[in-house]
């Protein structure tokens, strides 16, 4: 990260003149190529990469025409980087320095000269007063001389020192002291120092306090390093805990207790939310468990983690980031949040495309995978043209690779699957011709695959189903039937190998084909003429329904079968009603009765009407097919289910009558004689015409007719 060392350049502060900011100063840091230049306010800012506060650096050059550094040793000296404390650079004009030096030297010489004169005068006085001997006088003179000369030699250094003193740094009193010294006012300087002098005790206490603080800091550092060690131990234990949680997850899954298995993964994910793998695994599992909110939470955490990792170590983690973006794309399909799905998918696609620049096959296939997801999103949001563009691009990628690996079943499988997808997309968009082209090509490829490895037979039904749907839509019944035959052949083989597993599904498949076929044949469409009905299609479809029915009966105990079983029987009844084959109708309806009854018992309120309808109808059919006993049973049942159905009496009465239950029959007839006398008489005539009246009942019928006519 780049850090900035701030600073400013100023001129030397002198007693008579404060320091000024200095612009246009070129500053070069050792090891850096580009210099910085101080601005109008004298400020500068040096960018230094990867520096922390306290790290060392040094200056290589500080330059401005007409100025020199007040402290030349600043160049090369080790400075400490700080992003808080600015670096002050003081420059001075050499002319000013010279002038000041000269002035101070002269002053000092003056003072020294005056002092020398004074001392000399004193000595001479002492000699003449005989306080000194001649010898002492000579020695003192020599001494004075030596001191004077020594001082002379010091003056220049001293002048240099004071000429470079930055008065801006000194506070008021110090300024005065320095000024006094410069001007030779020594006593005054001395007394000023006294005013500043710190009591020695305070100084001593300060020094001790400093040492105590250093000890405190050292102890605190110890606590920090102990804490580091302890944290390392906690993290190690965390790894162990995570391992146990995974193991418990395994065990719970083996007992099929998937909720508990999920809980263990959740706990592990919460142990460290920054561990991407734990988050990702919890997300995938929750997704499978259909706990969508939870899955989303963990997916997003994993995404955060992978983003960070991919920034730090792209070579390793970019791929993972791309995969999790795709996972999220798929995730958002379920709740139909297509906007979010698309955002993530587009990001994944951008990454995939960039990675594919390395031209490896795997990275190109990754692009194809993401394009597939994108095409699903486009289909889901009705963007027809885009979906076709995208899937064609994916298809081209896979095609090129498939050409190079024309014997590799895994590649071919993928190629075939995407061809199917393209065909399906075209189908959804109404482009049937293109759709058929891709489907048939996919079918050929699937056949080829089966020859290479028999296990790929499982691909065939899916393509054939697509084709069947297409041919049905296009009314190409011959081709449709061909495909159906092929599918059935595969499914029947599966069913014969493992009946329990495959026969129920085969039954449903047969019913689907059968019912679609019946509909397409227009057999049940009363607006269509008989010669326009496709008889071949009709008969083939009826065969399928019969076959389905056998299997439905066998597997009626399975949860989901009764639904289809019921539909199948209903369809057959409809067919037989169409041709007035009441007997067959009766048979199938009788088979329906217990199924409807079961539904009615589960849900009396909801199923009452439906069940009663069936019973009423069934009773009537039984009557006209010569099964009066059954008609009575069903009729009475219908009345039990729905006592308000008066019409049932029309069936119930004759049923009783024909069985010889005269008294009961008479009662019903007479009760309803008022509204229904005519229709009852008509019914009786009808029955007679159809020879449905048994000999034993003939007399009763006559009796009743008489009673009605009364």
């Amino acid at each position, binding site marked *: 990260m780049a850090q900035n060392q701030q600073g400013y350049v100023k001129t030397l502060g002198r007693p008579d003149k404060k320091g000024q900011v200095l612009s246009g100063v070129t500053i070069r840091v050792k090891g850096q190529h580009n210099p910085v230049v101080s601005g109008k306010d004298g400020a500068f800012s040096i960018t230094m990469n990867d520096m922390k506060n306290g790290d060392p650096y040094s200056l290589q050059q500080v330059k401005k025409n007409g100025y020199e550094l007040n402290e030349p040793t600043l160049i090369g000296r080790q400075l400490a980087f700080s992003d808080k404390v600015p670096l002050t650079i003081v420059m001075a004009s050499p002319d000013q320095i010279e002038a000041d030096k000269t002035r101070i030297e002269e002053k000092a010489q003056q003072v*020294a000269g005056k002092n020398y004169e004074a001392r000399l005068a004193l000595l001479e006085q002492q000699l003449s007063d005989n306080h000194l001997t001649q010898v002492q006088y000579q020695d003192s003179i020599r001494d004075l001389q030596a001191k004077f000369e020594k001082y002379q030699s010091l003056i220049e250094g001293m002048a240099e020192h004071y000429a470079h003193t930055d008065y801006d740094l000194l506070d008021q009193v110090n300024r005065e*002291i320095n000024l006094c010294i410069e001007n030779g006012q*020594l006593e005054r300087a001395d007394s000023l120092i006294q005013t500043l002098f710190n009591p020695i005790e305070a100084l001593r206490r300060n020094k001790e306090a400093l040492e105590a603080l250093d000890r405190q800091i050292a102890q*605190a550092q110890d606590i920090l390093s102990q804490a580091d060690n302890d944290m390392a131990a906690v993290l190690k234990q965390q790894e162990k805990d995570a391992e146990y949680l995974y193991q418990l997850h395994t065990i719970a899954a083996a007992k099929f207790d998937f909720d508990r298995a999920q809980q263990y993964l959740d706990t592990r994910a919460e142990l460290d939310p920054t561990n991407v793998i734990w988050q990702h695994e919890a997300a995938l599992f929750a997704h499978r468990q259909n706990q969508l909110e939870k899955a989303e939470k963990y997916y997003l955490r994993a995404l955060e983690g992978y983003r960070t990792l991919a920034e730090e170590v792209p070579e390793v983690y970019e791929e993972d980031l791309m995969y999790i973006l795709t996972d999220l794309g798929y995730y958002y399909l379920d709740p139909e949040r297509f906007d979010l799905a698309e955002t993530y998918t587009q990001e994944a696609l951008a990454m995939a495309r960039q990675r594919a620049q390395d031209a490896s096959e795997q990275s190109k296939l990754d692009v194809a995978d993401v394009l597939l997801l994108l095409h699903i999103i486009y289909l889901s949001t009705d963007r027809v043209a885009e979906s076709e563009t995208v899937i064609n691009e994916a298809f081209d990628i896979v095609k090129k690779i498939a050409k190079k690996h024309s014997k590799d079943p895994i590649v071919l499988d993928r190629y075939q699957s995407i061809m199917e997808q393209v065909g399906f997309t075209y189908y959804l968009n109404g482009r049937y011709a293109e759709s058929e082209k891709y489907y048939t090509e996919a079918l050929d490829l699937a056949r080829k695959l089966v020859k290479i490895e028999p296990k790929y037979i499982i691909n065939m039904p899916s393509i054939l189903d697509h084709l069947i749907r297409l041919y049905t839509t296009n009314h190409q019944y011959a081709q449709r039937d061909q495909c159906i035959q092929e599918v059935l052949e595969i499914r029947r083989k599966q069913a014969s190998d493992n009946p329990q597993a495959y026969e129920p599904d085969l039954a449903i498949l047969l019913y689907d084909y059968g019912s679609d076929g019946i509909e397409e044949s227009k057999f049940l469409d009363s607006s269509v003429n008989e010669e326009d009905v496709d008889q071949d299609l009709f008969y083939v479809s009826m065969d399928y329904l019969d076959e389905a029915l056998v299997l439905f009966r066998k597997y009626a105990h399975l949860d989901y079968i009764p639904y289809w079983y019921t539909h199948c029987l209903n369809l057959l009844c409809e067919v037989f009603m169409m041709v007035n084959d009441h007997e067959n109708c009766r048979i199938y309806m009788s088979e329906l009765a217990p199924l409807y009854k079961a539904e009615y018992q589960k849900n009396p309120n909801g199923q009452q009407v439906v069940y009663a309808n069936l019973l009423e109808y069934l009773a009537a059919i039984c009557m006209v097919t010569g099964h009066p006993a059954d008609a009575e049973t069903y009729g009475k049942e219908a009345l039990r289910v729905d006592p308000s159905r008066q019409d049932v009496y029309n069936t119930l009465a004759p049923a009783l009558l024909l069985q010889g239950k005269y008294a009961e029959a008479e009662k019903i007839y007479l009760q309803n004689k008022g509204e229904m006398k005519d229709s009852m008489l008509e019914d009786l005539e009808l029955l007679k015409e159809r020879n449905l009246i048994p000999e034993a009942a003939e007399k009763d019928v006559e009796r009743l007719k008489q009673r009605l006519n009364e």
Partner: protein
Amino acid sequence: MKRPLILTFWLLFAVSALAQTQQGYVRTIGRPDQPGSSLEGVVIQAQGMVNAVVSDSTGRFSISIPGKKDGDPIALLSIRKKGYELKDKELKGRNLVCSSRVPLHILMVDQRQLEADRRRIEENAYRVAEENYQKRLDVLEQQKEANDITIEQYRQELQTLEDNYDRYLSLIDDMADRYARTDYDQLDSIDYQINLCIENGDLDKADSLIHTVFDPETVLERNRAAKQEIQERIALAQSIIDKANADKAAILQDLEYAQRLANLCDNLAQEYVAAGKADMALQCLEKSLEIKRILYGETHPSVEETQLQINALRL
């Protein structure tokens, strides 16, 4: 003749000081039936290296990258030996830490053994799933016979059972791969047993073993509390350091002030000497000495120098 030798020696010293050596070793993982061993002939390429290195007969290798020092990150871009793969695929490319003291520890697994172990674990897992399925199916049948549940409930439970069975089967592959990669050499005796039980399908035993050393109900709380406690300690220590540094800064300023004062005394003394007022000079120097003694201690050159000046004046 001597000169060149010294020069060469110095050059050697200079070069080796620049290139840090990172040691490491490669081992195979330990499995229940076979402990791990060192792996020879593994080709390793680190980021920033021109040439690859190869592990020796003791599994050791040594990487030399110029410019790297302790604490710097180092990534291994390629670790290869025919017939073997990394135990932890994530190791490749991950940033490890350079250390001249701590060697890098790389674990690999024999691919054939991995395959065999995976298959064995999968078989056991399938067997367990079958047993479980059958057991539950029997229970359901019984309940149906005894009319403890209705036909409808029976059908629903059966459907759920089928779904769960399929669900579990889909998980087996990944689980088997994971357990086949466990390094038994690193496990303590309990963990060893737990892993062995899981691999063999003795899941109940594994479950009870795990519960003797681990409580899933309290782990989150325990983990959170431990981390919090440590973080509190760190915060406390850090605040102590910060405050101490701040206090130090204030004191250091005072001390610096005293230092300047001592310097001023020295300067003044010099002036007094030039003016011939030796006794005044002496007073100044003695003040300066007092300060310096406290600031620097008795044996500091500055203290000694001032003492000398005093002595000279007294003469």
